[in-house]
């Protein structure tokens, strides 16, 4: 497979997943605001700050909106073309990448990516976000699922599909860590205590962001406790949006491409992903909290970024050997 094609498939898939995650975060935050509205007068601007922080775009946000309220935050996360990580920008980038590899992906995949982009690019999307943001978010999330499902169902499960899987898993692991980190930035209103009512609602919203509340309840009966939520989202071996699950799937796809056994490594990307995978396999939530949750998540994001660069170096940048 052409190196450029591998790179485009990887980024196409990452951007789709990123668009979905942004929609999830915005969705849950909006729900949270509505929940809290009954109990007290929320300072909406403050409630949106953690999300802008988790996207690492505070300055850009402040520079674009005179009145940085909840409406502005939703616009910034969803449709703002100047925000390189808005749902709009992610889908535009996904589509641009898909366009360069149209002959590699199935027609059905292209059609669904194109439709999703046309939706956010047109009046329908804008209007829906204004009138019924919930529906807008569902549309993005379902659209992403459709693309991923169609990819699995219509594409040959060869090298290209593996690069798509790597993009998706890597981005998902990164996003789950960012969603968890939102809670770190989320200040409790004054007078509220840790483990209190508001704190619990906030942790539940973190689970909802990852479509994990139902799965969580089946495993941990009873109270939603911070360390249990973190444990679930970081180390659960079977929940498909946990960091561990995502890294496992990333590592497996890497090995499928090179053909080397999963207990070994054939290149730098595999060495790094293998190490992260086994760290996660044996991590305990006690250790993580001792190290500091925020610090642990930041470190994980850094390690994922290193895997991404190593992947590029291995398959896309300087591979100019002529095979015998």
């Amino acid at each position, binding site marked *: *497979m*052409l*190196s*450029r*094609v*591998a790179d485009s498939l990887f980024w196409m898939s990452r951007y789709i997943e990123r668009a979905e995650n942004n929609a999830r975060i915005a969705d849950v935050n909006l729900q949270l605001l509505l929940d809290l509205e009954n109990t007290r007068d929320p300072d909406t601007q403050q409630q949106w700050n953690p999300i802008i922080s988790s996207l690492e775009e505070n300055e850009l946000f402040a520079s674009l909106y005179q009145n940085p309220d909840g409406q502005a935050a939703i616009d910034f996360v969803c449709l703002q073309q100047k925000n390189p990580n808005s749902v709009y920008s992610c889908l535009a980038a996904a589509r*641009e990448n898909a*366009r*360069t590899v*149209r*002959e590699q992906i199935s*027609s059905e995949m*292209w*059609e669904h990516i*194109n*439709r999703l982009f*046309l939706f956010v690019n047109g009046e329908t999307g804008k209007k829906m976000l204004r009138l019924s943001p919930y529906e807008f978010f569902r549309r993005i999330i379902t659209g992403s699922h459709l693309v991923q499902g169609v990819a699995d169902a219509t594409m040959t499960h060869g*090298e290209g599909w593996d690069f798509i899987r790597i993009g998706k898993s890597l981005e998902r692991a990164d996003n789950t860590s960012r969603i968890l980190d939102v809670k770190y930035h989320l200040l409790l209103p004054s007078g509220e205590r840790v483990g209190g009512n508001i704190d619990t609602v906030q942790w539940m919203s973190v689970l909802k962001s990852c479509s994990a509340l139902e799965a969580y309840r089946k495993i941990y009966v009873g109270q939603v406790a911070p360390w249990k939520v973190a444990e679930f989202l970081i180390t659960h071996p079977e929940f498909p949006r946990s960091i561990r699950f995502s890294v496992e799937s990333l590592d497996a796809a890497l090995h499928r*491409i090179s053909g080397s056994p999963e207990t070994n490594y054939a290149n730098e990307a595999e060495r790094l992903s293998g190490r992260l995978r086994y760290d996660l396999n044996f991590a305990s939530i006690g250790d993580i909290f001792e190290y500091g949750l925020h610090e642990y998540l930041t470190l994980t994001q850094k390690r994922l970024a290193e895997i991404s660069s190593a992947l590029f170096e291995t*398959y*896309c940048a300087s*591979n*100019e*050997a*002529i*095979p015998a």
Partner: protein
Amino acid sequence: MTEFFAKYDTGGFYDEMFDAPGQARSHYQRLLQRFTELKKDEFDRKHELAALTLLRQGVTFTVYSDAQGTERIFPFDLIPRIISAGEWKKIERGLEQRITALNLFLHDIYHGQSILRDGVIPKDYVWQAACFRPEFMHFNVPQNIYIHICGTDLVRDRDGNFLVLEDNARCPSGVSYVIQNRQVMRRVFPNLFAQHRVRPVEDYSQELLNVLRYIAPAGTTNPTVVLLTPGIYNSAYFEHSFLARSMGIEIVEGRDLIARDGKIFMRTTKGLQAVDVIYRRINDDFLDPKVFRKDSGLGVPGLVEAHRKGNVSLANSIGTGVADDKVIYHFVPKMIRYYLDQDAILPNVETYLASNESDRAFILENLEKLVVKAANESGGYGMLVGSHSTEAEREEFRKRIQKEPRNYIAQPIVPLSRSPAFDDDVIRGRHVDLRPYILSGEKIKIIPGALTRVALCEGSLVVNSSQGGGSKDTWVLEKEEE
């Protein structure tokens, strides 16, 4: 929709569908009946479905002069254009004759130049053609084929005779619309096809791949064929991708290829892989910055050297542009006589050469009655339609013609035939042309179908997509209607 056709006016032009007002030609009768039975809201629904299908599939092209919304769908008209079996047979013979002569001509002028020595074509016309590549003199192209893919534009005059308007012998585009239009029509009017025996166009990609494999360097048993595109911002990118996909070959950009030891390789995730045949959709000028334009970032440094060594084949060959130069076009009937000793089956449109003194005087005096074309441009650029021009525009062309006579030709304004097209809730006659695609490999193949471009604006004679034209599905019938 009876009432729509009832008011239809052929306007004194040759009409593809109607013999006389209200009287459909025999090969159109079934279609007319089906359309008159169709209810207006049903038709509107089909129209919407067609546009939506094209947009969703991303069947779009890019317009350079348009800053906003650069991607547009190629407007598609739902009423197909039908060509009877008999008419097609003649077109096919004419095109086969023409491409044979053009390939012989290219071989000749890049070798012995007998046609110039015998004075059939003035020597200067070839040597001054912008796309003549003297550096390729005495170079042997694989299988002696220069133009592997040709798109020849035909028009009909007032009497319904087909004339050749121009040849496109470099990187002709549009064939993907032929296939896509057919797919849309099948989806929108599934029943129509059962009633007509329409010849299929879908095997074009397979035939093209056969041609590309046929010209592979000698000794390669299973050649690696790729399509070289300028990239996703090129106006025809959709087509590049479509063709690569339907042939199952890689689509590459210049940066994906690298020259090593006189060979061409592509960069893959498993290292470098040798490439044998390149279907290039990049013009000569941009192919190799070491040989042609130094500023080209689209090509591959070292590509020409690899080609010269016979390690990689190109389709079309380098230097074919001299054959579709609009001055050389004038001489094609003479080429056919010279190489094949035959009369041209499909005549040219009468052409005046500005470099010829008496012709030039005639052109300058009659600008408003003529179409003036730059010899080396395509796509409707660099063109003046006299009857639709202002005095200022004519003055501008007068100056250009006097400054560079070799670069201009003029033709009488052909009253192009019309075909009914749907426009703003009314069916009206719109001017059309016809671009069939000719493949030259082991044999010459012409896909039974073509791109019918239609000038959707009232009275307009310019059908190019870059100038607001649309297209129609074009049916070639299997058998003569009884």
